[in-house]
């Protein structure tokens, strides 16, 4: 396959997840802001989840790439 969609997708969700959770850490003490989300620091938790999802996608893409490489016969084999 030409380009594994899990690669860009994984990268994007890792980046967005990290941005979100960092923002959640910075704004940790801003109780007023998190009144909207019923007192939960949703940025931190959801950011961590998105980053984990992204990382899982990257892992799957990597595994698939290794498998394709192993299965495909190398071009210069006799």
């Amino acid at each position, binding site marked *: 396959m030409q380009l594994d969609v899990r690669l860009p997708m994984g990268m994007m969700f890792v980046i967005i997840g990290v941005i*979100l959770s960092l923002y959640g850490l910075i704004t940790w003490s801003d109780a007023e802001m998190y009144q909207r*989300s019923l007192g939960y620091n949703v940025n931190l938790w959801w950011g961590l989840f998105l980053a984990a*999802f992204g990382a899982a996608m990257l892992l799957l893409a990597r595994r698939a790439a290794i498998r394709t490489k192993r299965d495909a016969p190398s071009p210069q084999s006799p």
Partner: protein
Amino acid sequence: MPHLSIALAPVDYLILAVYFVFVLGIGWALRRYMKTSSDFFLSGRAIPAWICGLAFISANLGAQEVIGMAASGAKYGIMTSHFYWVGAIPAMVFVGIFMMPFYYGSKARSVPEYLKLRFDEKTRAFNAISFAVMTVFSSGISMHALARLLEQILGFPYDLCIAVSALIVLAYIFLGGLTSAIYNEVLQFFMIVFGFVPLVWLGLESVGGWDALVAKLNTVAASPANPAGKVFAEGAWTQSWAHMTSPDANPMGVEWFGMVMGLGFVLSFGYWCTDFLVVQRAMAADSMSAARRTPLIAAVPKMLFPALVILPGMIAIAMHHELGDFLPKDENGATDFNMTVPVMLARFCPSGLLGVGITALMASFMSGMAGNVTAFNTVWTYDLYQSYIRPGQPDRHYLRMGHIITVVGILISVACAYVAREFNNIMDMLQLVFGFVNAPLFATFLLGMFWRRATGHGAFFGLLAGTGAAALHHGLTLPAGATVGVKGGWLVGGHVLHTYPVDMAQNFWAAIFAWTGCFVVTIAVSLATRRNKTDDELRGLVYSLTPRVKEHGVAWYLQPALLGTVVLAAAVVLNLIFW
């Protein structure tokens, strides 16, 4: 006059920017794979099933879906789920198991091309032209809706929104063709899910959970101040079937027969089984088995979407009823249900998560737009340009045409967006006419695929008759309280034969008449005319003349028939739980 304003923080803009960088980056990374017209229009038929399946559902998950279904969730409650569990799942299973063997197996490159192989040129031309015009307008309407929403809630300039959304969609389709659209649809799918899950969870948490929501919605049903302005029995907002014996007993104003036949059969099968916008995603699959699994994989998230798009509407109406002014009013002073999702975002999402939510909203508009553009450029290039304008050119020529028509198509969409902004009535009328043309289509495909005696003349005049029947029905009936014109009754100047309680009921019945008209006339004309295709020519196009698909080398749990059965059973269970 903005009646709801959301302020974005820098972090929200940052998230939005990251998303757009990846959307464009995917197009850029794919550009070197676009060597032939088949790469550009069909993704070289090399996409795995799960990606096609998510793209299939994402192309359908346009703007109207997210904004409109939340609005319906507020207005009609859980009955809106009929658009999913009745109006989508059975048709998706049907197209995967029974129709995909002909679409994919015939090697047709588009739905109109299948009609040409099965029937004749005029049937294909009729379908290709109406489809091409319709997709370009739909894409324009999506763009308009996005720009107007961003103008209203974020205060962005309208022209800038149009320009940016048009350029982004143009760039990634121009560079990477259908593959780029499909990959981005997968991205958009997850973006939409991840943007809405926290919203729904926070909403439910704040009203006190599902049981508390049901109790609150029962007071909505019992109050004459609810969206329908009428008192209903308990559960009218939280039970999907129990109140459908009569149109007066539920807020949607429909009864079960019109709903099951009109929505569940005619409209739903007409859309999922014949609309090239979605079928194109399955045709891009890397094997017959993957193509058949595509709609079945798509059916799983489709079945669960009510929790994501309808539930926010139900939460919003419960809160609106309690607080009195949760949802804003539109310029006429009526409650603006289309603001349901933005209001929920503003209420529950702090900066950061808000960026994810707004990005999800934009993603849903763009997936709808891009889906229409890719379907349009394929039908234009293969079914109109290559067939009637410049046949017999080298493949390179058609690839170039694909690039050119992508630009032209988006320019026409932009023009349509501005027309929609200035003259809303024109758009209403166009959508009405498209409705007439689309309603009978499924009868043509059903007879084409399962009755070898159906002829080209039969199909063509059947389609005309079905379209005519829909128009006639519309001209003779009117929803209650509507004025004669775009809403109906124009043939008889208000002395209508039948008055429907709501326009949705009128739509359902128009579809039933259109389908029946097309079905009967196609059979009659086919029997009166000679067959124009021999059995040999129909091999691979008609059920009785095509060897059954054998799924070799596919694990038993991936067999389409098994997957389809599981999906259908799950849909039945969902209907029973929320009966």
